[in-house]
């Protein structure tokens, strides 16, 4: 077990480095970050400024420059470490980030750590709520299907879950928005956070949008595992003891049938994070997704890099803990 954990930790560290480096490098190598700070001035060739520094040409109109242009560029470069190479900048950025300093936005100068603090909880609440919705639907649904497998209800469920899995989450979001908010006006059309009740109401539809498809995935897996478990001797034993079917299903059969659901739980969180980006757009929820899209559209690399890194690290961590939990629950995994 100890070796298993050590190996997983090593893997985790490697993946965190490669994920953050990939993000950092791709947004730094393509495009010119300097342009976002000083605008067109970034077009001034380096040689020209070097010549100014050596005193060879005048830093005035005559050479096509404005007074102080070069000083401005030098200052911007130094402040943002743009005079160093990408690897060095990555190192500086990573150590800053580890100590909680995410830097500031190039565009509006906002502290990125404040943005993260404000936006991340909303997205986390949305994702947790979606998982609750998914499990809340999938467990009774899976149990009911497996209880009388291949009978009427189970067959209808197969069709139903197949249909649910074929609806893109944004399409489901638009459909739910249309019926529940616009037609029947059950849920608010705007995100409000005046206390937990108003937020819960605002997050219900988005959570169902994300959770319904997931519920179908979980239901399929749970059904298959339950059917296998129900063949086991201890179930016959419980039945022979005269226990009620409900008790057997929920107390005896459910727990050993959750392995597949737990395995895909981590992977699905990734899909949920992607889905949350889109669903936040539809329901105008001020989470990480809306901020990320705004940052991309206003060309603000520091914010984009930070948000993607935070989300990616969170995802890697979740999968890490799911793996650990799985190894803990099923001894065979530790050795493989």
């Amino acid at each position, binding site marked *: 077990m100890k070796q298993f954990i050590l190996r997983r930790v090593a893997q985790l560290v490697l993946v965190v480095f490669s994920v953050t480096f990939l993000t950092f490098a*791709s947004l730094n190598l393509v495009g010119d970050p300097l342009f976002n700070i000083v605008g067109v001035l970034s077009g001034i060739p380096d040689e020209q400024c070097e010549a100014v520094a050596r005193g060879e040409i005048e830093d005035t109109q005559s050479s096509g420059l404005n007074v102080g242009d070069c000083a401005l560029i030098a200052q911007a470069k130094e402040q943002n470490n743009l005079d160093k190479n990408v690897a060095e900048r990555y190192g500086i950025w990573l150590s800053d980030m580890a100590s909680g300093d995410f830097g500031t936005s190039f565009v509006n100068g906002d502290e990125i750590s404040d943005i993260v603090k404000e936006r991340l909880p909303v997205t986390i609440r949305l994702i947790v709520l979606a998982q609750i919705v998914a499990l809340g639907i999938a467990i009774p649904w899976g149990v009911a299907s497996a209880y009388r497998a291949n009978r009427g209800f189970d067959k209808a469920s197969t069709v139903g879950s197949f249909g649910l899995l074929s609806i893109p989450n944004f399409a489901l979001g638009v459909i739910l928005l249309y019926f529940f908010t616009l037609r029947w006006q059950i849920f608010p059309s705007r995100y409000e956070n005046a206390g937990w009740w108003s937020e819960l109401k605002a997050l219900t539809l988005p959570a169902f949008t994300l959770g319904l498809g997931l519920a179908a995935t979980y239901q399929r897996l749970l059904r298959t595992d339950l059917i296998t478990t129900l063949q086991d001797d201890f179930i016959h034993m419980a039945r022979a003891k005269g226990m009620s079917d409900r008790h057997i299903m929920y107390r005896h059969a459910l727990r050993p049938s959750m392995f597949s659901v737990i395995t895909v739980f981590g992977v699905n969180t990734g899909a949920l994070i992607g889905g949350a980006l889109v669903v936040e757009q539809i329901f105008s929820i001020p989470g990480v997704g809306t901020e990320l899209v705004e940052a991309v559209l206003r060309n603000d690399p520091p914010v984009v890099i930070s948000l993607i890194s935070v989300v990616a690290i969170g995802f890697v961590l979740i999968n890490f803990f799911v793996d650990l939990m799985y190894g803990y629950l099923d001894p065979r995994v530790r050795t493989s």
Partner: protein
Amino acid sequence: MSEIETTGESRLEAISMDDDVVDAVKKKLGVGFWIAVGWLGLLVATVVLAPLLPFDDPDKLASGPARTGPSMDNWFGTDALGRDVFARTVYGARVSLVVGFIAIAFGMVVGGSLGMIAGYFRGRVDQVISFLFFTLLSFPGLILALLITSTFDRTLRTVSLTLGVLAVAPVGRLARAATLVFAEREFVQAARVIGAKHFRILTRELLPVVLIPMAALALLGMGVAIVAEGGLAFLQLSVEDISWGVIINDGRGIRDLQENPHVALMPIGVMFLTILALNFAGDRVREYFDVRETAF
């Protein structure tokens, strides 16, 4: 399969085997599969022939009165600018299907080759390639797509290849798993014994058998890619052309949804049927060939 049914001896064998095997012999693709394929065929035909058919120009403004429901002139109604929603859905299908196809083709070629190399040579090569897959899967899919399309551009090619990159890891893992299993089988060992080169074994012996599970994944993956493109469109990071995602995103404003919901709901319906057909066909192919690994 057909051999078993035709020769008398084998049939006896089949009967004496347990029920599962007999079921497998009797297994057919079924009517549903052909309906799904029919829908996809109809869609592809419409999309290819669109310029020849008497549809409106998808970008023509006021091709009917604005914001009207479905009618004989405009089958899916018109949007806020009076554009014909049916024509837009047909032309949107072009982009969506092309993106889906290129993405999964890229994933099959790159992911498939890498996965087969990893599964065949194993050892160091396998470790490196598996770690690459692991890293790719460590990004939440849409985030990686957003990263790539925001750093590069939003042409059809970039968006398709971006989604193709997303397909590399799942396809690659499946190819690797299948290759690992088949590389131990007698026909591969036999090829090795007669001195076949690695390249020949990989392409002539392993590729045909590994392709079967990959075909099922390709159908499912094409659906995933089409949906992912729609997701990107909702983030305004997909193609500048019209695709299903773009049309649905156009029609999802509060006012549009209230006054003419068909602008969003009609393309949603067509998209749903298409994803359903792809999923169903993929699922049937998987069951037909009894593929156990899903890698999703």
